[in-house]
């Protein structure tokens, strides 16, 4: 792993416990858990603000977390409605969670001392798998048995061949989705760590800015590709 010197969560009791049970490096889980806790806390804050004041309108100019979240949700929903129309609201929880989880995970890497969970292949693979499984679940649910037509070519006798090829294509999607995020974050974090070790002053700040940029872009790319894949499964086979 990169930048071992900056991982501060490596020596917690939870860490050693996990290490004993699994025989694996638990740092990504702990970091991901941290991000998850943060997000759940945020979620509870938001839902509580709704409970205390069910009608919050955007006309209120004061900046609250709820307003901010609503702004994000509005933008995301708009983006989703471009490709999947009415289905957008159904898939908002999945896509939104993926997006915000990855964004916060990525941004965690720019804070010195933390590893972004997304700089571990297993985390990104988990996200990609969840998205792809959801994609196919959605496909089966909307099209039923006909969904298999997505995997068959236009010619019947070529169907088994096409099936293998399509499966390869879908596996490639998982791979490319997870590897893109993982590679970018890993590389970014590595560069940041190296420069942090070399020149501890000023220059890392520039790389941190770059890190923030890469984090946002990669989270965005992952989210939009997820939207594309799901809307692809929603379409009719051609």
């Amino acid at each position: 792993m990169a930048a071992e010197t900056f991982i501060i969560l490596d020596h917690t009791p939870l860490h050693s416990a996990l290490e004993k049970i699994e025989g694996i490096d638990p740092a990504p889980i702990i970091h991901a858990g941290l991000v998850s806790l943060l997000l759940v806390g945020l979620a509870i804050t938001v839902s509580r603000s709704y409970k205390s004041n069910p009608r919050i309108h955007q006309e209120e100019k004061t900046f609250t977390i709820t307003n901010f979240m609503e702004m994000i949700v509005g933008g995301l929903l708009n983006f989703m409605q471009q490709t999947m129309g009415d289905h957008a609201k159904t898939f908002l929880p999945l896509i939104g969670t993926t997006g915000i989880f990855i964004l916060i995970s990525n941004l965690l890497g720019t804070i010195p001392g933390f590893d972004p969970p997304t700089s571990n292949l297993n985390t990104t693979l988990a996200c990609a798998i969840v998205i792809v499984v959801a994609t196919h679940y959605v496909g089966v649910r909307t099209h039923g048995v006909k969904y298999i037509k997505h995997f068959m070519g236009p010619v019947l006798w070529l169907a088994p061949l096409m099936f293998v090829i399509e499966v390869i294509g879908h596996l490639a999607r998982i791979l490319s989705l997870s590897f893109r995020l993982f590679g970018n974050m890993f590389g970014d974090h590595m560069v940041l760590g190296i420069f942090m070790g070399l020149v501890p002053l000023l220059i890392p700040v520039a790389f941190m800015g770059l890190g923030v940029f890469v984090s946002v872009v990669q989270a965005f790319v992952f989210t939009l590709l997820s939207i594309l894949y799901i809307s692809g499964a929603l379409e009719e086979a051609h």
Partner: protein
Amino acid sequence: MEKLVNEFSFGLFIWQTVLFVLLVLLLRKFAWKPILKAVNEREEGIKNALAAAEDAKKEMQNVSADNERLLKEARAEREAMLKEAREIREKMVADAKVQAQKEGDKIIRKAQESIEGEKKAAIADIKNEVASLSVEIAEKILQAQLDNKDKQLKLVDQLVDDIKLR
């Protein structure tokens, strides 16, 4: 590349997946549903407000159209009433004219008739008078000439023939 691929560990992967699915479910319950609800409500509110505004606009248009229509109707009605009145007046005048004509004709005819009657009566009177006068004259003349009855009659006939009115 080898190193990166080796980083894959099944246990870690499973853990992360479970964690991520849990996170999705939790956030769905706590964050997305309420936010989505709020966003929906707001959209609904905006839509409703727009619809209400549209309705109000339509109502206004209806009202003004109604007004316009009423005004037009009233104008048309007035027009019709005026026309009717004029017609009635003209008819009355015409009727009166005809009536007067008739009345006048009737009076004239009556007058003519009575004149005619009177004239006839007068003529009859005159005839009678003339006859009696003639008889008297004849008697007087005959008293003077009693001798000849035949002559007498002859004379009378001659006289009567002479007196014959036109």
